[in-house]
């Protein structure tokens, strides 16, 4: 792998993103809209005895996870259907360079989305968190975005058309939410569901977030925190191995 080719892919993707303003606005506005509607829902369902805090931040993270996963999967499948992926290979680009280049470019976008969502959560839900806690939550959200993009890349390798990505959305994103522990505590789930939850990055993100919400620092659940970048590396390696140069 060479840094110059990786930078060329990242630069090209960023340049395309910069020119597709409608896409960028949608990517930034859609998660903000969903967070706003969630706030409206919580307000309508809320009682003085219901504390939304344990739900608000993890749900915001889930939105970032959902958006980055789908976007990355769709954009990479588009490269395949347009045959630009094949042309990249023929012109000397290698699998890891393409994947890393994409990841770098989309990480920039994910960083902006994470920052915006976190700011909105802080303001709308009146969280009152200090800079240290906010930075920690941002780190978790950002790591979750990175592993979500890696999952998107992996899924895109299994699809030949954009339409083939659609079945992966309920198959991956919904279990991610259900087994994350945001809605129902994982300890109360049957054993098989508890096992399944361990393969969802959303579970580890929620574990760390609950520690942060409760007032502990990032050291509250180091094992779960480490699982996010470690999982991202594993998924990226899998994505690199399954991205085919030859048919």
């Amino acid at each position: 792998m060479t840094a110059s080719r990786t930078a060329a892919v990242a630069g090209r993707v960023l340049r395309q993103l910069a020119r597709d303003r409608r896409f960028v606005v949608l990517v930034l506005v859609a998660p903000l809209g969903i967070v706003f509607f969630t706030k409206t829902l919580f307000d309508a369902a809320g009682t003085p005895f219901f504390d939304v805090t344990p739900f608000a931040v993890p749900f915001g993270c889930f939105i970032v996870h959902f958006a980055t996963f789908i976007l990355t999967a769709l954009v990479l499948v588009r490269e395949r259907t347009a045959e630009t992926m094949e042309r990249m290979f023929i012109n000397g680009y290698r699998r890891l360079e393409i994947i890393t280049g994409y990841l770098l470019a989309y990480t920039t976008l994910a960083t902006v989305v994470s920052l915006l969502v976190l700011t909105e959560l802080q303001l709308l839900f009146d969280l009152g968190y200090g800079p240290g806690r906010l930075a920690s939550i941002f780190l978790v959200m950002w790591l979750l975005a990175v592993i979500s993009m890696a999952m998107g890349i992996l899924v895109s390798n299994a699809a030949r058309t954009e339409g083939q990505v659609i079945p992966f959305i309920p198959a991956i994103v919904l279990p991610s939410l259900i087994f994350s522990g945001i809605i129902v505590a994982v300890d109360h789930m049957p054993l098989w569901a508890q096992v399944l939850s361990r393969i969802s990055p959303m579970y580890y993100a929620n574990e760390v977030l609950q520690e942060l919400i409760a007032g502990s620092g990032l050291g509250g659940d180091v094992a779960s925190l480490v699982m996010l970048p470690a999982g991202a590396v594993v998924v990226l390696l899998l994505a690199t191995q399954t991205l085919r140069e030859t048919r």
Partner: protein
Amino acid sequence: MDLAVRLRGVTKRYNRITALAGIDLEIPAGSVYGIVGPNGAGKTTLMRILVGALAPDGGDVQVLGLDPRQERRRVRSQIGYMPQAPVLYEDLTAAENVAFFARGHVLDAVRERVQRSLEFIDLVDRAGDVVRTLSGGMRQRVSLAAALVHQPRVLLLDEPTAGIDPELRHSFWQRFRDLTAHGTTLLISTHQMDEVVHCDRVAILRAGKVLADEPPQRLLTEGRAVVTVWVGETPHRHEMAGYPDELPRILRRWRLDPAVTRIEVEGQTLEDAVLALIEREKAGSDDG
């Protein structure tokens, strides 16, 4: 003779469809080699095997003495490939597209190379335009520039002149000749028979088989022709197969008779010759 490409018994199947049924070809270095055949003949499959994008089911493939599957990187650094459709990023400019594909080969002086490529395809004045705003012919030219920006030894062009106007087609062929003058080997697939005359040698492909592998002039001379000798107002028709050999015999028969007022030779076009070849093969395979 130095060979740029050598194929021995190459086969490829897509489920029940045979795309290549045991292809043998030898393409000399520095030549313009045409692959001609109807749609579905196996031209694109052959090209994609040569660039290592498709794995053959059987046979031996060598590009510049290397196996494109085993030594993919080394092969790809020495070849340029222009796909049938102009595969480009529509939201990038012409220059950005060419530069991006150039950087895949980790080149120095990318900017200069991009400039030279755009000059070669005569598109410098539109270099900064987004590809989406360019015409189909211009996109084809940008695609060609992206294929040759790293100065490959072998250039594989899949129907490069499909859907472009005759003037641009003429200029494309001039540029192809310029490239071979500098030692580049060109493998060009086409289904436009009139273009075959520009090639040094041509393989006729149908249903994954090579029906002929000859210089285009040979294909012409092997074709049928009709000689009409006019004596006054009376035409005398002579049908010939292989007219360069038979024509003198017919003329001898007339012994330059002063009564002969006109001699017309109506030769087959290359298209007729290729179609006749394909029809003969079709009839043969139907009988078989």
